[in-house]
């Protein structure tokens, strides 16, 4: 593991970006497969093979292209592109804030895709997607602020190599991040705009009018995004790469566990609780840090 770490460190910016672009969908898809398997076991089912998400994606690409307007797919292409770009920035070791803003741009394209089709279900999904964005955005920015306060840099490269355990300085921020991570992973109780659970709905919110290859692109963008988010979890434990990878995976399993145990919240509760939790856990942490210095 440490040798892997060293190899990654020896890479240049573009090599790391390329590695992310190529490897992230594999990791993300695999994680999605594990997710489905574990979820099934929780529910007493056997579950699909771990590689099922890849089979699904391949199959979706072969479907007929059915659309309601000519430009809807373009938004999704842009969404995927900028999600990949944000992740590549992150893994290249660039500025964490810039990564966050770039990810927000990607998210905006996704929302616009939902609005653009002009269907009531996807309109509602898009509205809810914005509410979700607004719910998690403050906390994500606070993560960057907290990491800056401890390490003195916004650079992912610097934060990742920080020798002291970040988690000890940022327990509140980490707790807050875990909370909104449930929104970002599109897990229950916060999967308002679209859900991964087929049994919960026939009409799938924001993605109602997207099918075939475009739906596959949405799925792939989601994989990229998940890897990026787990990368952010990694940063909290960057002092020990082994531990960091372990915690990142544990976090993912934890989110699945949460997903299994909660019924969906209303948007009011999602939004209000996210902002409150951000305030209680994140803000207090930030203030303590600023007083410590």
């Amino acid at each position, binding site marked *: 593991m440490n040798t892997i770490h060293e190899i990654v460190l020896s890479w240049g910016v573009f090599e790391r970006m390329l590695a992310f672009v190529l490897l992230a969908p594999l990791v993300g898809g695999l994680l999605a497969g594990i997710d489905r398997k574990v979820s099934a076991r929780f529910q007493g089912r056997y579950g699909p093979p771990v590689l099922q998400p890849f089979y699904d994606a391949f199959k979706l690409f072969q479907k007929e*292209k*059915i*659309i*309601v*307007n*000519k*430009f809807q*797919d*373009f938004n999704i*292409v*842009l969404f995927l*592109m*900028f999600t990949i*770009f944000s992740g590549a*920035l992150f893994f290249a070791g*660039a*500025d964490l*804030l*810039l990564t966050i*803003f*770039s990810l*927000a*741009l990607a998210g*905006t394209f996704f*929302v*616009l895709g*939902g*609005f*653009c*089709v*002009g*269907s*009531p*279900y*996807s*309109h509602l999904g*898009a*509205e809810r997607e*914005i*509410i979700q*964005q*607004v719910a998690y*955005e*403050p*906390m994500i*920015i*606070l993560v960057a*602020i907290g990491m*800056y*306060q401890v390490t003195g840099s*916004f650079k992912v490269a610097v934060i990742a190599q920080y020798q002291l355990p970040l988690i000890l300085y940022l327990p509140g921020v980490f707790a807050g991040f875990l909370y909104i991570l449930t929104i970002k992973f599109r897990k229950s109780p916060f999967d308002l705009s679209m859900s991964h659970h087929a049994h919960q709905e026939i*009409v799938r919110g924001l993605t*109602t*009018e997207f099918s075939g290859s475009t739906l596959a692109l949405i799925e792939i963008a989601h994989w990229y995004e998940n890897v990026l988010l787990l990368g952010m979890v990694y940063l909290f434990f960057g002092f020990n790469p082994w531990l960091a990878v372990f915690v990142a995976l544990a976090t993912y399993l934890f989110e699945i566990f949460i997903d299994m145990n909660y019924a969906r919240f209303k948007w009011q509760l999602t939004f209000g609780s996210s*902002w409150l939790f951000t305030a209680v856990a994140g*803000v207090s942490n*930030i*203030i303590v*840090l*600023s007083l410590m210095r």
Partner: protein
Amino acid sequence: MNVLIFLIVFPLVISLLALVLPRGFHIRKTIGTVANVVLCALPIYLLVTNLDQGPSYFRLESGFVDILIFLLEVLIAGYLIYLSVRAKRYLPVILVLIQMSIMIGFEFTYGHSIQVEHVLFMDKFSIIMALIVGIIGSAICLYGFGYMPEYHEHYPEVKDRRNYFGFLMYLFLSAMFGIIFSNNLLWLFFFWEVTTLCSFLLIGYRDDKASQDSAFRALNMNLIGGVVFAFGIVYLFVTTQTMELDKLLLLDQGAVLLPAVCFAFAGLAKSAQFPFSSWLTGAMVAPTPVSALLHSSTMVKAGVYLILRVSPVMDNTVAAQMLTLIGGVSFLVTALIAISQSNAKKVLAYSTISNLGLIVACAGVNTPAAVWSALLLIIFHAVAKSLLFLCVGIIEYKLGSRDIEDMDFLIMRLPKLTAVMMIGMAGMFLAPFGMIISKFVTLKAFVDGNPAMAIILAYGSAATIFFWTKWMGKIISIRHGEVEVVEHTVSTWEWITLGILAVATVAVCLAFPFISIHVIDPYIMELFNTAPVIDMFNVLVVFAIMFSLLIILPLGLLYYAFINKNYKRVGTYLGGGNVSNITFEGAMDATQPIQLKNYYLEKYFGEERLFYVGVFVSLTLIFIMFGVAAI
């Protein structure tokens, strides 16, 4: 120096021409166009010739002009009193009387002993402001040529006073140039009061009950600022015998803190920060060019200009912290209120107050990075906000409504305009455009010294995303079937202006490293002897995003519009049998139309709920600010 004087006098001459030349006289528009070109060109000339120079100060034998200015001030006061009495409103009368008694008393007690060395001055900050006033201000006047005739067609009941309107617009620009080039505080104050007068008259242009109310509210609030401003000037002179802006900065902090706080207070009133915000939201009753002018290049920018000028005096004081918090409260609360508004102009107004709050907060923090981002915010906001106002002005005529809920399928009805508007909106909140770059820097500036502000910024940014994204979504939704295109009736004048501003929105982002290195950094160096270093890698990333958008967006749209044929097009899913594309067969055999509405979250972010929170919190902060300055 001649250029500066020319920039102040020239719009004045044009305004007088606008007043006297009879309407319908074909030469009017020619003169206006030439004037606008000159107004754009001169600030650029100033920039180019002063690129490598520090600030310059100019002496002027101004005895005669001083007297003239004093007389004009009395005249304006008399005119305001006359108008107020005629409208049976007495608060402005009292305020004007207080202000004039301060100024007249001062003139007769100390007038002979005032020694002013440099009347005018110019540094990089003034040049930035001159560029904004010159280019954006005259672009808005250009738009007015196309807009005003239509305005009077739409509102036949409004008395056609187009000459008077043009007169006020150019007078406004003249006063703005006066503010940004004056070093003599008495001159600055005079031009300051002229902008108050102009905004009052322009807001009341329609001359009905609503616009009278709004006009007088704006007048009252700005007069309160003016009274405090006048008091600050007198106090400053009596205690330190100083009447010049540059000398003010060299004095001992303890001696000039109170006047500086007075000036900052006047700036808060002018830039519509809490508790004065209501005048700006009321100002939307005026014709669109007025709103665009007030919000982007004049008025509110004069307020933050003055605050940024005096904030170095307040450096590291409790008063400065209060100023920062007032900015922060205005930023956050108005961003939240904007979520609950469906009136397009009101959303824009609250967004203006919000962004200005950020600038005020930066001024209060007063570190190199904070001032740096404040200047960037001023530039980016001016361009994008004027563009958006002008777009909404056109939409209002074409759709007969300024309600966002009526802007469904706008991209089908006004395709080019929607494209322009998308650029403006993206400019307000999306990477890689200007505002988000500035916010990014602002956040970094806050984190070091002021984590509370960083937290406010985190929440405020989230709110900003909310109201812009849902508006964007509204206008780009597409419906099946034919929709009448109503765009062909937009006049050429308006298209030219929109074109200039849309290109400028993108161009200022591309030119931002240049602006930073050659214009902003030298100014920061003069102020702090150190300039913030931009991370070149980040700039590269921003450029990469910008260029990829500039290339991919048009290509992608072309591809999806004309080349891509490999699809099957179906109707939207309506949860039942589609009758047509917008109706479906619901329960009980009834045909139900579909309607798409946005969330406004009134219950959480309602105006009446949050507005007074902002007012009272900021009032408290203002009292503390004066309290600590007075001790």
